């Protein structure tokens, strides 16, 4: 029955249907992880320029205190997630293997860790420009994965009128359920945030797009929407990558965002539901972005959970709280299984974008031998952007990167649908990423 109705739901073209594995954590209420002794806070947890430390080694900091200041428009602040002392400012290994300039904080074991609300602007009667001014002080970035400092999206180009606000509750990555928990546990906050943004942007309507496999979220939100609010919840087919902004816009509004443009350029602003809730927290209660909701899951985790984790907590501590890794764990991923980053070391800290910590065992990480591409076309039929992943991979293997550019390499969002569906086991996305990396500047220094 559900299957039938699924078929008739609007969606985008192509895409894949990986098993969602959400049952592991979907019903687990969020809980707060205890404070640990050390926190590592990289200065660039967002797109754009790293922030600049405003504290010194040895200095005491309070929970919620500003420790890093934005250095550019595309940049944001950083706040201390604990009360304690700055132990060092230097290079630390980030989750992706690079060493980044970071602030290391040692928690004060005897502190109450009470959060002192920051001064916050009054959003009522505020203009969008003022919102753009204010948001960098919150440290909020897009929590849907891109980590774009929140204000950037609202600095609209001249002449652009926003008609739709879209709250992205798709959470199409398998395993992850933190957006789901936000929608189930904090519907008022989310709707408050929507109200604020909708008012400030002057949008006619807000659409909350939720994949059908989260009936509880759909029901909860529908129950909380007041009749006077111009907010709709639209269930979407379960299909990856439903949560990608352009795909979701296609699914909800049947519009195609032209390549090279942003949603805003066609009058749409999209935010992740968690981002919107974080904005509400900041504008209503003055809470800066210091805690991250993390889904800890996967076959390698003893006790899966949805956790509220202070930024900078080492992955190892998160795992320890969940009972540690099982014996046969082979790989730990930060983020979702489709787009996440494997971590090389458990010392890596939780960042603003770390929506999940997933552990996989030998069974999931085993790969059948890679065969040459047999041009079966499954990747072509999977790619939501209508690229030709088979050819891109072939060109990448022949190291013909410039030719790849002509095959629209830059349009690939690295969603991984192609790799997921390839029977020959070709690491297509990795090849694509390699090519992009190569083209981006052959002599780019990876480290700072």
């Amino acid at each position, binding site marked *: 029955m559900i299957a039938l109705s699924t078929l008739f739901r609007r969606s985008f073209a192509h895409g894949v249907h990986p098993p969602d594995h959400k049952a592991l954590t979907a019903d687990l209420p969020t809980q707060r992880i205890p404070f640990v002794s050390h926190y590592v806070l990289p200065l660039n947890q967002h797109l754009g320029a790293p922030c600049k430390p405003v504290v010194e080694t040895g200095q005491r900091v309070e929970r919620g205190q500003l420790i890093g200041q934005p250095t550019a428009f595309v940049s944001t602040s950083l706040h201390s997630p604990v009360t304690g002392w700055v132990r060092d400012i230097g290079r630390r290994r980030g989750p992706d293997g690079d060493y980044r300039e970071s602030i290391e904080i040692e928690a004060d074991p005897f502190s109450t860790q009470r959060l002192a609300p920051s001064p916050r602007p009054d959003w009522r009667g505020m203009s969008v420009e003022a919102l753009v001014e204010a948001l960098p002080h919150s440290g909020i970035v897009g929590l849907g994965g891109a980590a774009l400092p929140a204000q950037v999206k609202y600095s609209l180009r001249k002449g652009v009128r926003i008609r739709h606000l879209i709250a992205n509750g798709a959470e199409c990555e398998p395993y992850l359920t933190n957006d789901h928990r936000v929608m189930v546990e904090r519907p008022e906050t989310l709707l408050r945030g929507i109200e604020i943004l909708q008012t400030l942007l002057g949008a006619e309507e807000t659409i909350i797009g939720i994949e059908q496999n989260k009936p509880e979220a759909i029901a909860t939100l529908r129950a909380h929407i007041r009749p006077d609010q111009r907010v709709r919840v639209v269930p979407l087919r379960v299909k990856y990558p439903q949560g990608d902004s352009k795909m979701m816009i296609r699914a909800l509004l049947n519009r195609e965002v032209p390549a090279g443009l942003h949603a805003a350029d066609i009058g749409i602003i999209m935010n992740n539901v968690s981002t919107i809730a974080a904005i509400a927290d900041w504008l209503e209660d003055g809470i800066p972005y210091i805690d991250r909701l993390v889904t800890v899951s996967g076959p390698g985790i003893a006790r899966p959970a949805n956790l509220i984790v202070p930024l900078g907590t080492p992955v190892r501590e998160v795992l320890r709280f969940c009972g540690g890794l099982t014996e046969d764990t082979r790989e730990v991923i930060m983020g979702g299984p489709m787009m996440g980053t494997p971590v090389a070391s458990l010392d890596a800290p939780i960042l603003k974008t770390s929506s999940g910590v997933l552990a996989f065992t030998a069974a999931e990480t085993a790969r059948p031998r890679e065969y040459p591409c047999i041009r079966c076309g499954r990747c072509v039929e999977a790619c939501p952007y209508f690229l030709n992943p088979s050819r891109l991979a*072939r*060109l990448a*293997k*022949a190291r*013909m990167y410039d030719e790849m550019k002509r095959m629209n390499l830059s349009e690939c969002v690295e969603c991984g649908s192609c790799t997921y569906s390839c029977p020959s086991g070709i690491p297509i996305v990795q090849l694509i990423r390699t090519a992009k990396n190569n083209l981006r500047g052959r002599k780019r220094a990876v480290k700072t």
Partner: protein
Amino acid sequence: MNALLWIFISALLVNNFVLSYFLGLCPFLGVSGRLETAFRLGLATLFVMLITALCSWLLNTYVLIHAPYLRIISFIVVIASTVQFIEMVIKRVSPGLFRALGIFLPLITTNCAILGLAIFATNKGYGLIEGLIYALGAGLGFTLALVLMAGLREETELAPVPRLLRGTALNLIIAGILSMAFMGFAGLFSAA
């Protein structure tokens, strides 16, 4: 079947100059690396073939009846000079056209598809119209073979072809398979 149509189809497919007569192999093997270039070379060849058909008919009709023994030498000299003259004119008149097609002219004149065309057309006793149709078929057939070959070769660039085979050896084998496929056209429109 209409005789002219048969002449055309025969030269285009059945007796394709490259794949069945082995004519014009130098450009076929040399300049089929990239599709763009191959296509333009094909067009230029078509053009030279038409000129050749005209020249050889003129020579046959007005000169060689008096001196048949000068066939080879007069064909080559007249065709080469005419093409060169045209090349100069093109270069002068339209540098764009010259860039696109003209640069191929010298390569084409010294290949045997051109002389072969003149000699075959003479051997078959074609008149002016038949000769031109023949040249059209042969030129288009040459272009077809070249373009197909270029498409295939561009693809092999991406393949882990055994090192020793890379280059001419592989290209010849591809040509062999292509020629095998073209055998399917044998008897086209001539079957009783």
